[in-house]
């Protein structure tokens, strides 16, 4: 039932680009906030927490949309290892988009910090436990760098498809339509 055209659906493309902005902002805010004692610290933390919840919600919507609409097939001419890397990277992206906000949320719960977003009290999802906090915080921190590294890889690969291979893979997720669409 998947209507396998050469591009992702408009909904998928909107979700991709909105989340790209959110996630990149999230990672930059994350490393910035832990690097400063200036008043910006509180502002950044106050963005980081709700934005994380927004990303979690968007990721769940996106996962459902992906199950419903699937993805366009990778070009036949693409080497198998490259195809495998593409599929694994997508898996890693979905895992990180869902796990990172959950880790952040759970680590606040484990540290027994109250979590209030837009005036609403957000319930704890982990027991207050300082050793558990350490585990969750360490995972949140290291996975954030993995996430950023994955984004760099993804960016490099996207540009490689767009500029060098020119095989329609970039156009499949591009926010705009361009004439040199992949011919079938």
């Amino acid at each position, binding site marked *: 039932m998947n209507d396998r055209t050469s591009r992702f659906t408009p909904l998928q493309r909107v979700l991709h680009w909105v989340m790209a902005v959110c996630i990149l902002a999230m*990672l*930059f805010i994350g*490393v*910035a*906030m*832990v*690097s*400063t*004692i*200036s*008043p*910006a*610290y*509180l502002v950044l*933390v106050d963005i980081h927490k709700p934005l994380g919840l927004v990303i979690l919600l968007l990721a769940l919507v996106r996962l459902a949309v992906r199950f419903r609409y699937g993805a366009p097939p990778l*070009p*036949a*001419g693409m080497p198998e290892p490259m195809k495998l890397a593409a599929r694994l990277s997508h898996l890693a992206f979905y895992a990180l988009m869902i796990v990172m906000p959950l880790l952040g949320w759970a680590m606040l719960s484990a*540290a*027994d*910090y*109250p979590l209030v977003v837009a*005036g609403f*009290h957000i319930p704890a999802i982990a027991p*207050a*436990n*300082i*050793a558990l*906090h*350490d585990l969750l*915080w*360490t995972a949140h921190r290291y996975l954030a760098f993995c996430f*950023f590294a994955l*984004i*760099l890889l993804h*960016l*490099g690969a996207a*540009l*490689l498809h767009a*500029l*060098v*291979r*020119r*095989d*329609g893979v970039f156009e499949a997720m591009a926010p705009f339509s361009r004439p*040199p669409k*992949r*011919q*079938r």
Partner: protein
Amino acid sequence: MAQHSSPSGGATPLKLLAIAVVVGAVAGAFAWTAGWFSPGRITPAEVVDNLAPPGGPAAGFRRNHAKGVCFTGTFDSNGAGSALSRATLFAAGRYPVTGRFNLAGPDPAGPDGAARVRGLSLRLQTPDRQEWRSAMINPPFFPFATPQDFYGQQVASARKDDPQAMKDFAAAHPSLRAFGAWAGSAPYASSYAQDRFNSLNSFVFTNAAGTPQTVRWSFVPAAELVPLSAAEIKQRDPDFLIQEMTARVAQAPQKWTMTVTLAEPGDPTADPSQAWPDARRKLDVGTLVVSRIEPQVDGPCRDINFDPTVLPPGMSTSDDPFPAARSAAYAVSYDRRSAESKDLPRTRSTGAPK
């Protein structure tokens, strides 16, 4: 199937270079944002590093104010604070409090008599799940005007090879000299119950009508001051403050009145090293009742980060830069000690392994 994937001749190396530049630029922006190219940026990790004694920090304990004792009790609000803040805790009623009496410094086993600065931390929760955390100390003003000065003093005092560095710093910072005068002359209370604890930092209260008011607050003891001289206090047991407080609270609950001081236009709200004039309007809003004392090693305050920016609606940070800096540094201290939680001695079994 038409292939567009044939590399376009000699342009490919250039394109690959362009891709590398773009990816490298994003990575560089990230590193810049993280401060990796900004050695001048004061990080919370540096501030916490600087708190450690020469032998390193005591594993599992707070990086500053390491020695302390837990308490539980209530805050009995008289309702007067509602005129200033819509926070539930100022509505008349009784709310549970978990807190900690503590001494400034990184040593969890240092002698009580050696600490000039004492602290009171509390966490107050209301039935609607609002929460307020605060960490106060007993000096009437802070030695430093800005977090940068706090850090500057850490750096200057660490230069053991250059005693002039600290002298130069003190000469350039009159608030530190004023603090030295206080430290050299103020009496030592013979009990935590006799100490007055001050927010020093200013915060903004907002009432139901939306009117903001910048304030500071103090917890004023009900117990009368019985002073000890600097010589006398050094003769006392290293744990006399904890022993005295445990025995005292076992006899009767101990009380403090929370007094809110209202700033007037032009008052130095951003600078905790400057006290406000005595004539400022004050409002008593409730009573802290401390009814039970427990050791901190497995007490209810042990795993709480008394982050002064945990504030309910109706209370917020002001133009005072310290609460943000404290929040950032307290988080680092909490993260580090949480990694060492297994190193903490426990006086009772808490189901921990081994």
